[in-house]
């Protein structure tokens, strides 16, 4: 079953059309990456789902129930972590979760037990100082705890890792990964490596519409299709993604280059051969074995998500 479904949703602010016939759905118990450039409309989409903004047209369903602007009944299924979460600085984390639990009409005993568990999960167990002394990462973690407090069916996180250091980002992504069995996660980001790390499915929002929706694997296949289309259009031979070799000694690097052909140096002992196919890589392996050249590693290059993102947005850019 789909936990969230948007059907032909549009939203404009004045003359500025932010979302234009947007449709996608999020399967239950998945981690769904919602990516797009800054200003693409990711936060607007999330606020529409939460009933904080009114859509101009279309329908939004959460757990099969329609979303309404204002007092939105479907919010009982949703936990929300806003971008740059702010909390009441004069409260401690436990007091804040107690407040949120009471607002959500949870039983008192359940609030205490659930708060303790969630604060331990996010690494804030035993923290008794008030929130105004918290770092950005600590606030983000408290935000996840408050979003998960009521056992939500759908957790919506708006840019949960932005402005965090690499350690903080890893912590947040690990937490999101660990709760997949309990809930469905929809998180927006413009950091593509986060998507590659934990998402089951992704949707790319571009110019108010979904430019791509599918798994990461299907995205890589899509890129191959795009590459073939480009080659057909330009009559160029169909190339591969290339491969990279890491040698042990610099002299081995020079020896191989003189036999196989010049590649792009990536370090004193590394060479990149762009646009080469798997057959070319096998030929290279044969040459390495024949010449007894020791290597550290040889691997086929995968197209980065960033590259795919740029290709897709180029392809789907509407004429100005």
């Amino acid at each position: 079953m789909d936990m969230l479904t948007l059907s032909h949703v549009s939203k404009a602010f004045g003359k500025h059309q932010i979302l234009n016939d947007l449709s996608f759905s999020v399967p239950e118990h998945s981690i769904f990456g919602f990516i797009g450039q800054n200003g693409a409309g990711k936060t607007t989409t999330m606020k529409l789902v939460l009933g904080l903004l009114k859509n101009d047209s279309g329908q939004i369903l959460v757990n099969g129930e329609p979303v309404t602007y204002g007092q939105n009944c479907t919010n009982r299924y949703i936990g929300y972590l806003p971008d740059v979460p702010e909390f009441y600085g004069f409260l401690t984390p436990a007091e804040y979760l107690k407040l949120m639990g009471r607002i959500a009409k949870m039983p008192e005993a359940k609030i205490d037990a659930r708060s303790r568990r969630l604060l331990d999960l996010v690494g804030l167990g035993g923290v008794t100082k008030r929130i105004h002394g918290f770092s950005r990462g600590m606030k983000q973690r408290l935000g996840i705890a408050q979003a998960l407090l009521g056992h939500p069916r759908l957790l919506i996180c708006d840019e949960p890792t932005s402005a965090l250091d690499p350690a903080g980002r890893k912590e947040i992504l690990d937490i999101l990964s660990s709760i997949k069995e309990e809930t469905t996660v929809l998180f927006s980001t413009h950091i593509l490596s986060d998507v590659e790390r934990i998402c089951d499915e992704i949707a790319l929002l571009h110019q108010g519409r979904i430019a791509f929706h599918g798994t990461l694997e299907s995205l890589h296949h899509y890129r191959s299709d795009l590459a073939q289309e480009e080659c057909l259009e330009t009559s160029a031979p169909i190339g591969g993604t290339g491969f990279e070799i890491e040698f042990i000694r610099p002299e081995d690097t020079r020896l191989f280059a003189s036999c196989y052909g010049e590649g792009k140096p990536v370090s004193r002992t590394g060479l990149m051969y762009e646009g080469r196919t798997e057959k070319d890589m096998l030929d290279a392996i044969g040459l390495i074995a024949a010449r007894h050249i020791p290597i550290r590693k040889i691997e086929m290059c995968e197209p980065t998500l960033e590259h795919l993102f740029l290709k897709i947005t180029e392809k789907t850019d509407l004429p100005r």
Partner: protein
Amino acid sequence: MKPFTAFFCKELTELKRTGKLWILILIFVLFGIMNPAIAKLIPWMLETFADSFAESGITLTEMTVDAMTSWTQFYKNIPMALIIFFLLFGNIMTGEYQKGTLIPILTKGLPRRHIVTAKTLAMLLTWTGCYWLCYGITYAYNSWFWDNSVYPHPAFAALCPYVLGIWLLSLLMLMSTVFETGSSVTVSAGVVFIAAYLLSMIPKIQDYLPARLLNPAGILQGIQKPEDYLAALGICLMLSLGNLMLSVILFNKK
């Protein structure tokens, strides 16, 4: 605990822990003490400056200081107390808009009207406690040093600025649902009050306007009767209720 009660308790905790409550209590206690203190000090001050007044051609006759002097000071200090209250509560809503602290509250399902009502109730309780504390201190000192019993209806007279304060708080809440910054809220509420004050200079309508309640010292002096203020009190309370209802409607659309 119900959601409304939880949010209301949060408001009270905020007042305590941010220090606003203690600042207001201190200020209103000081005012309460200052009113009789200034009255007591006036003869001494006049005696001290009698010579310099004489050089300017001003002759001082013997002045009688009594509880009325203290009550006059009390009603003169009310506008200052209200301004301080406004400045401290001007960002009660706008502060939350700017930080975004209401977003998690709303997404957890707290009805918007509860937010408006809880904040209004917190302001009202604080105003009530501080105002009547100030009144109580002034009344006690006046009873100690002089005699309050010669003045008719002191509590009713004190009720008038209190109700005016309620109207101003409701105005503050209304403006908070319209504007996004604390300064805009304070200025706009101030403008409305000044307009009401200026309109109260028109004799035909002055008895019905909230500004009438600003200085009811005439009741203590026996010049006016409590009945003369009933219309203004009633209209003020109705306006306060209307402001609150409009605040809820506007906040629901925000």
